[in-house]
């Protein structure tokens, strides 16, 4: 455990110094962050800007903004921690670099999941937290609600990580997987609105087939105290099941890996 924490520190240091070399990229990253928060806010403000609309699917503007905040935060988590690592798996399989990763005396899944970091998108995390803070300041939030939201958001991050890892692991067979993760981000776009804003059959799909609802809507509900016990329990259970499933899938993929040259 100690060793792994030390490794994380070394990885972070290495990526930091590699990325700060290109200062011009910083401007681009800021532009991209602003673009994303712009899309998110525009979608919800046009929706609430119509005459006579005060609620969307039973959610007030503040509450819906909370969901947008969690959405931005998750976009940040994906672009800072998850995407930079996962996009490299396919490349490593294609070029044969995966051999070196598998030979190292540390857990390979840990290595491919933590090696890289995109610090430049760090502002996304701050924007997301800022939006959540702003929206929550106009709502009644208990400390118990905040704690529950934090825990449930933790399992939301695990769910996102597992979906990404599962999709990227298919690279061991299909090599080109960038498209598949793109497909997930398309579906994930639905998470910028509370699931209650969708027609009933779609709501069902977003909750039980593709667990998008657990990523943004459920933590927001926990924060406002509107969450039922069933969904609160389901979120960590789904996260645990997904983690176990992707772990087994990863092991299976590594076992059937035959290197690029053979």
């Amino acid at each position: 455990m100690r060793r792994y924490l030390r490794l994380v520190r070394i990885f972070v240091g290495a990526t930091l110094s590699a990325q700060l070399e290109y200062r011009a990229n910083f401007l681009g990253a800021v532009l991209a962050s602003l673009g994303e928060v712009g899309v998110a806010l525009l979608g919800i403000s046009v929706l609430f800007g119509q005459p006579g609309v005060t609620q969307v699917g039973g959610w007030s503007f503040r509450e819906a903004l909370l969901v947008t905040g969690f959405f931005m935060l998750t976009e940040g988590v994906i672009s800072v921690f998850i995407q930079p690592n996962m996009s490299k798996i396919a490349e490593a399989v294609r070029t044969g670099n995966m051999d070196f990763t598998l030979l190292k005396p540390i857990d390979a899944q840990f290595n491919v999941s933590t090696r890289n970091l995109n610090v430049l998108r760090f502002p996304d995390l701050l924007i997301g937290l800022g939006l959540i803070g702003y929206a929550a300041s106009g709502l009644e939030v208990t400390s118990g609600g905040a704690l529950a939201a934090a825990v449930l958001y933790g399992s939301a991050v695990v769910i996102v990580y597992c979906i990404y890892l599962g999709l990227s692991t298919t690279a061991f067979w299909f090599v080109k997987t960038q498209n598949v993760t793109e497909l997930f981000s398309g579906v994930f776009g639905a998470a910028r609105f509370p699931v209650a804003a969708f027609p009933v059959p779609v709501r069902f799909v977003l909750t039980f087939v593709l667990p998008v609802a657990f990523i943004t809507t459920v933590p927001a509900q926990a924060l406002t105290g509107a969450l039922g016990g069933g969904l609160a329990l389901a979120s960590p259970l789904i996260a645990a099941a997904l983690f176990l499933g992707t772990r087994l899938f990863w092991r299976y993929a590594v076992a059937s890996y035959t290197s690029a040259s053979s």
Partner: protein
Amino acid sequence: MAEYRAEVVIWMLSGTLSLVMMLVWMAQAAAAPGGQIRGYSAPEFATYFLSTWLVSQLLVVWVSHELDFQIRQGTLSPQLLRPVDPMWLHVASHVAERLVRIVPLLVMVGVFTWLSGASFTREWWAYPAALGLAALGFSVRFLYEYAIGLLAFWTESSASFQEVVWLVYAALGGMFAPLAFYPEWVQRVAVWTPFPYMLGLPAQLLAGKATLAQAGRGALVLLVWLAVFWVVRLIVWRVGLRKYGAVGA
């Protein structure tokens, strides 16, 4: 292009923003008193957003990504030795992709139409008019995206510029809602840009909510912008090439 059929379908499905907005607005209209918001009922929202989705699929341009890559990797150099402007290679691949895309696209629109209860216009002239506007819109978008891609000669952030421009295109084009739903000052700005005429207007034509006269006016605006971006692209290309040579790449 036909080699990458699966990829083409996945890319089509990943452009889901208008579909997400469609579902949200349909639920909103169904819940509203009278079943309407600003005169749009749920099936009318479905028609509008499916139309924007269809048109936006025809307008897809990825040339700035490719230029970014080519300039950084230096694969642009061999293309410069040929007697044609490399732009035409990109035009050809974009047009070819559209031909591959059209059949699965129409199938998907058919399925979504059946699921959502959308109904497109019965006026025959709306279809060639919308197609013409989409073709003009594609040309405009291609040229400005090309100019943005060429920024890679100077900066590594051209991809982020492209993202921000995409936001403006999606917003003013009417991907979040029909343009009439936006605040008035936004609408007043939007009419001076090419975006409402390349995305929202052809979609409104397909939905039977725009006239032929509006289509004509939109086409004129797009032609003016086409000329502007043609010149801009040419200038950026000439100046950029000098810079590219100067590095010795």
